[in-house]
């Protein structure tokens, strides 16, 4: 198939898809009418190159036609009503008065297509087993109801009778209006108006019609029949109703009926590519007769129109031009050729290389001889197709070398432009894909971590797919020991933690570490992640000591944060940040996803530096501290904990004191239920307690029940565990227990340590409470004694408080008293069962 190059320019893009069959484009003067099967008709003006009006109708439009006499249009809606819109009155109203539901001019529920002639409007539709044609008079005031004049019918063919009964016609009849050509009447105007030279007109439609200046309606039915009306009954059957004359049957739905521009041929095109050409032929015995020729062209024909020399039709995949035989009537040789197989003279359509056209308007010829075709694509784009000049067809156009050069240059430029556009489109698509991929990963990660977002501190039973693990470490830096927290983020999920995720660790000191403003000085560390693949982990270290301060215990929370800005590429995000207005949604605070990972507490037990089973310093001077020293040390310690004094006193916290002692007794049953280690209970308790300790490796002998350690400020600490039996509590028999003795030279260290140990045991108790049954029955007497003891201590505290309030006695006395009470409480603890 020889291809033809034509230039295509897009005029206007409507924001809709088009319904095949209902889409129509009409040209009248500079106005282009576009209807796509929706409720609106768009008016595009080719002179102003813009949409000049959109007219809304009450129903989806099936067919639209411009009124030939006045500046108006008729539209048939799916509700079976035909509306008239006066464009002169409502040139650019978006919702014209015709949209009122009752402003129709004709109501004909069966109509599926119609045609407007000079003063008559013809509708056609299936009704009661016939294709019914109804004639209406178009009054001078076109907005008024149209009076019905007459009706005709042709029985439906066997093929579509079933469809017609159900009033569901997938193919609609194609109507056209044919005038007999005479020089006086001039050329008819209108999209569906054609003329035919009088001999053929008379031959086809009868001599009666040709003697009256009536135009003839030619209708191609969906069953392929081509019929015409009006037709007077012929003499043979004068009683018969004037009906519809059948001209021919194409046996396929007729898409277009019309005549060639010279008026020398009647044409019809069927859906699957049959083209009927009716011309006048000479009879062998003299006289004229109509000659019906059929040829096949590649189909399916979606829409077609007739130009001056060609029949143009679209197959959706291409626009084709079929040359029409011009010239006067066929001579005898041409007729003889009709029966040769295949007809040798029949032309073949040429491709114009324009695809996806769904509607074509009647082509117009410009003064230069070029053909303009206005067409609509499936997506609703209005195209102006300019075909090369008539003279160019058939032979290679002669152009000069410079012209060729210019053309090539033009082509190259346009190719360049196109490739640029393509590249930018490609990159934007890629960007979107990336963003979607990222979003997908983020979404999956969110789903994984969602069960942990409930806010409960209870660790989930199974290890989460993305987990963080903390470990404290002592490092020596610049001659100074400092405590660091090592965080290990482990990704055991099947998703990649993409760039854009940030690990966020918050360190919240305990209540004691208030800054001067009385606020908790929270520190937040963020670690942007580079891709963390499944099964990999990443480690981060952050300092816990700041200066000399280590406000224990510390609460450490960790979360994964994703900024939605990361979805966009770095470049785009950068643009947003630099150019984006503050109100931009992406740069506002809402563009974050935050997922909590884990929350832990770092306390003394996590920070101690285990030095070994024995400590030279502490063991050499057990109990050497005098009572005065105790007070001083305590005071120093208290002062040291206050930040305002800490900076002025560098020696604080390193002052030797003590030894202070505290005892914790835990029932062996309880411990045994939890600590399932081998060896003695004491050593396993110690091992368990020190599991988070940075220097636990120093404990060479795990069976040893004594541990010495060094606290962050250098004070020594000693933990001793021994098995005892408590006799006065149990009923009958003594209760086996483990006594944990804490000893330190610093009160502060002891306090912290005691607190830490108790916290662990508390957590332990929670676990045990779930696992074991209630504790053994206790002896009431023992409990009473313990209670009495505590009451005595309570009275002492009250007394001290009272004297402090009344300012009776020295402060040191009160302090000593309180310290005593403290020690009493710590050294004679209750047994934890």
């Amino acid at each position: 198939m020889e291809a033809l190059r034509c230039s295509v320019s897009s005029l206007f893009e409507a924001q809709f898809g088009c319904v095949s069959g209902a889409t129509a484009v009409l040209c009248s003067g500079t106005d282009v009418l576009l209807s796509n099967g929706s409720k609106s008709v768009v008016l595009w003006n080719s002179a102003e190159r813009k949409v000049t009006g959109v007219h809304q109708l009450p129903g989806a439009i099936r067919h639209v036609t411009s009124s030939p006499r006045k500046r108006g249009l008729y539209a048939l809606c799916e509700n079976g009503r035909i509306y008239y819109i006066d464009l002169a009155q409502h040139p650019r109203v978006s919702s014209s008065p015709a949209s009122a539901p009752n402003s129709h001019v004709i109501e004909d529920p069966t109509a599926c297509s119609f045609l407007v002639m000079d003063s008559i409007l013809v509708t056609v539709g299936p009704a009661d087993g016939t294709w019914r044609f109804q004639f209406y008079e178009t009054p001078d005031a076109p907005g008024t109801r149209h009076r019905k004049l007459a009706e005709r019918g042709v029985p439906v063919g066997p093929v579509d009778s079933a469809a017609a009964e159900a009033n569901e016609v997938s193919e609609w009849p194609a109507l056209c209006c044919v005038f007999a050509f005479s020089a006086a009447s001039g050329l008819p105007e209108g999209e569906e108006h054609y003329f035919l030279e009088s001999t053929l007109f008379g031959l086809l439609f009868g001599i009666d019609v040709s003697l009256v200046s009536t135009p003839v309606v030619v209708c191609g039915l969906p069953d392929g029949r081509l019929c015409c009306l009006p037709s007077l009954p012929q003499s043979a059957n004068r009683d018969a109703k004037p009906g519809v004359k059948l001209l021919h049957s194409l046996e396929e739905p007729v898409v277009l009926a019309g005549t060639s521009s010279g008026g020398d041929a009647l044409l019809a095109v069927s859906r699957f590519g049959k083209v009927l050409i009716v011309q006048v032929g000479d009879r062998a015995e003299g006289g004229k007769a109509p000659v019906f020729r059929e040829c096949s062209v590649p189909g399916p024909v979606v829409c077609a129109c007739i130009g001056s020399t060609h029949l143009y039709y679209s197959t959706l995949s291409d626009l084709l031009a079929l040359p029409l035989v011009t010239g006067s009537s066929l001579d005898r040789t041409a007729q003889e050729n009709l029966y040769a197989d295949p007809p040798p003279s029949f032309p073949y359509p040429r491709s114009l290389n324009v695809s996806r056209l769904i509607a074509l308007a009647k082509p117009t010829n410009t003064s230069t001889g070029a053909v303009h075709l206005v067409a609509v694509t499936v997506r609703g784009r209005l195209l102006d197709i300019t075909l090369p000049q008539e003279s160019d067809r058939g032979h290679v156009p002669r152009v000069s070398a410079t012209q060729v050069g210019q053309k090539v240059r033009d082509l190259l430029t346009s190719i360049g432009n196109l490739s640029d556009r393509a590249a930018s489109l490609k990159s934007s698509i890629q960007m979107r894909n990336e963003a979607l991929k990222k979003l997908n990963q983020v979404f999956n990660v969110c789903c994984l971590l969602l069960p942990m977002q409930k806010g409960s501190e209870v660790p989930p039973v199974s290890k989460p797919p993305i987990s963080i693990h903390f470990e404290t470490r002592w490092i020596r830096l610049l001659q100074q020991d400092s405590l660091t927290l090592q965080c290990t983020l482990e990704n055991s999920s099947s998703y990649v933690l993409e760039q854009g995720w940030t690990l966020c660790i918050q360190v919240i000191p305990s209540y004691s570490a208030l800054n001067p403003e009385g606020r908790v000085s929270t520190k937040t560390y963020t670690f942007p992640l580079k891709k963390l693949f499944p099964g990999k982990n990443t480690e981060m270290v952050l300092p816990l000591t700041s200066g000399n301060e280590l406000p224990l215990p510390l609460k450490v929370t960790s979360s994964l944060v994703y900024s939605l800005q990361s979805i966009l590429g770095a470049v785009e995000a950068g643009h947003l940040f630099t150019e984006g207005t503050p109100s931009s949604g992406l740069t506002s605070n809402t563009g974050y996803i935050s997922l909590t990972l884990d929350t832990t507490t770092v306390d003394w037990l996590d920070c101690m530096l285990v030095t070994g089973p024995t400590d030279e310093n502490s063991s050499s001077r057990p109990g050497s501290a005098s009572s005065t020293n105790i007070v001083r040390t305590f005071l120093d310690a208290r002062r040291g904990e206050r930040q305002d004094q800490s900076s002025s006193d560098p020696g604080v916290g390193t002052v030797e004191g003590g030894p202070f002692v505290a005892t914790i007794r835990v029932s062996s049953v309880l411990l045994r239920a939890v600590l399932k280690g081998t060896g003695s209970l004491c050593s396993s308790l110690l091992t368990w307690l020190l599991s988070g300790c940075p220097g636990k490796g120093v404990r060479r002998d795990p069976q040893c029940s004594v541990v010495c350690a060094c606290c962050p400020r250098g004070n020594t600490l000693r933990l001793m565990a021994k098995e005892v039996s408590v006799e006065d509590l149990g009923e009958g028999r003594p209760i086996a227990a483990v006594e944990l003795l804490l000893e330190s030279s610093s009160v502060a260290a002891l306090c912290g340590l005691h607190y830490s140990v108790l916290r662990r045991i508390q957590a332990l108790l929670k676990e045990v409470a779930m696992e074991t049954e209630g504790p053994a029955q206790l002896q009431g007497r023992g409990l009473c004694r313990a209670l009495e003891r505590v009451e005595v201590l309570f009275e002492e505290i009250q007394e001290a408080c009272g004297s402090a309030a009344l300012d009776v006695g020295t402060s040191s006395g009160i302090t000593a008293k309180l310290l005593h009470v403290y020690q009493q409480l710590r050294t004679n603890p209750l047994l934890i069962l």
Partner: protein
Amino acid sequence: MYPRMSFGSCWDTWVKENNIFVTKWKCAERNRKGEQQDARREYYGEMCNLLRRVQGVLPVTGSVRLELAVLYNTSLFSLSLSDREETRRLVVEGLTRVLEAFGCEPPGSDLLVLWRAVLQALQSSECLSAIHQLLCVQWALWLTTGQLDMIQEVLPSHSQVTIRSPSGHLPPLIQDLVFPSEENSSLLVVISPRELKELTHICTLIAKGVRKLREGEEAEALQAFQDAALLPAPRKLLAQIHTLSGMCLAKLGRPQSSLQCYRNAMEVDFGCRSALYQSCVVYQRLGNTQAEMEALRLLHSVVVSPTSESTSNMIPLISHVDLLRSQALEGIFSVPAPVGIQHMLAQRCLHSGRITEAADHYLDLLASFQSDTKILMIADGHSTLPRIPDIYLEAAVTMLKAKRFWDSIAVCEEVLKKTVELIPGRLVLNLSIKEGMETESVAPSIPGTEDFAGRNGEAREQLKYVLWAGTALLIQGQAYSWLKENKEAITSLTRSINLLVKVHFLHKDWKYGDLGDKEAAGSDVQALQRLKGLALASRGVSFMDRGQDSVALQDFQLSLQASPGFESVQRWLVHALRKLKREDEALSFSKSMRKTTSEPEAPSYPTGILPVLLHLESYLEDRMPVDSELLKSRHVWSREVTP
């Protein structure tokens, strides 16, 4: 008054709603808004809503009257919207509920059984008139569906009513349906039941009459129409009844009575065109051309004048048009399109010798052919419009007779332009008597034309082309001859003859008389022969004018061969022989002529080319030279023949 019960307040509301609604509707009707289907549909919807509410409660006797009134209104609306199925459903449902209210078991959904049961149950109830209202709706419904007998079947079981009416056409109950006057009722209705009853009654009679008329029992039909004419009816309907009576009378062979009926119809409703048209038909049959033309003129002026429908009275909710829709009265009352009437008028003028008037009418007709594009579109099946070329040729003859020769030539030229090209070089007609109607078939012509009217009709149509073109040329020839342009005349006539001889018949022994006059094809063949004779004779006359007597003689002889027994031609032949000094032959021919001449058949008007040819034949007489001898022979001939 409407009984107040425990549901009183509710019912009061509904009664009020119904009344407000009816008042609103009547107002709309007066303002002529009620004629639009949309308005009716809207009111129907509202009424349906009310009915649904009323029927929402259990049926009790106390509410039956209210419910029946609302149902009556609703069903009238649905009937006016031609929603027959819905009306039927409404009635069935209403009746079932009435029976339930009176504690009876509904006997099913068969309308007849239901109605009998309801009428039985409510015999003595105060709701009887309400149920009779609904019965009228039912009656109207049966009328629209063409079930005329149903209403009679409802009633036999209802024996309570005494037979009063002498008319056997309708059950007495219907006649006796009495409704309280509207003022007494607190429940308003859209149409008073009495009006509805009367309308339905009259329409039933008409429907019955039309049915009889179609069955050919005109006497019974006439009886029905005369009964209907006694009842009060809208003017339009009354005019139609008179017209129908007239048609019956015309068929019964009482033309004067029928004319009286048509006159009555015209008096009642001047716009009754069918009465006027039917009187034309009667006048034509009576041969009263003068009166026929008067009537035609009147009809034409009525038809051409703008439609008077817009000024007519308002269309009621239910009109006789709705009720008689199933009877398809349009066919009976149809009147030819204006162009058809004008043609009839023109043709009558031509045939009755009013040539000037005829010429005017024909010129008007031809002008409207050129200007009015609708003519053929609206020429429907009942139109009597002949073939357009026939009209052209009639016009041309009229012009010829009116001595407007150039006009005549121009009109013929139009016909020639369209026809000559279509005539084949040789047309062979196979006239075989065996095949009956299918007497002609085309000898194998171009195979390609088989698709297009590849039937016998094509040859027949081509024969018509030949006839039209031949006649047109003949008229032209005669016109030129009158204009003393003998050369032109001879050319035209020669062309005509050349066309006519293209037609060949396969069965030589066939005679046109055998097929009978009704056969259209036969008349065409007959016309062809006659035309051939005429054309030859006309050419002979022209040759005589030029003094080419021997050629003329040949033509006359050929003419008599083609169309034997042509009296004027025979005389022309004698004349030619005499001019050629062949007195002996002339004398002997004159003698033989007397034997063969037969009385020419009386012209019958219908259409086709023959009446035109009859007019053209007079040319031969008119051109006959005033020759004492010829006249003498003519007198002799006529004297001998007349007794």
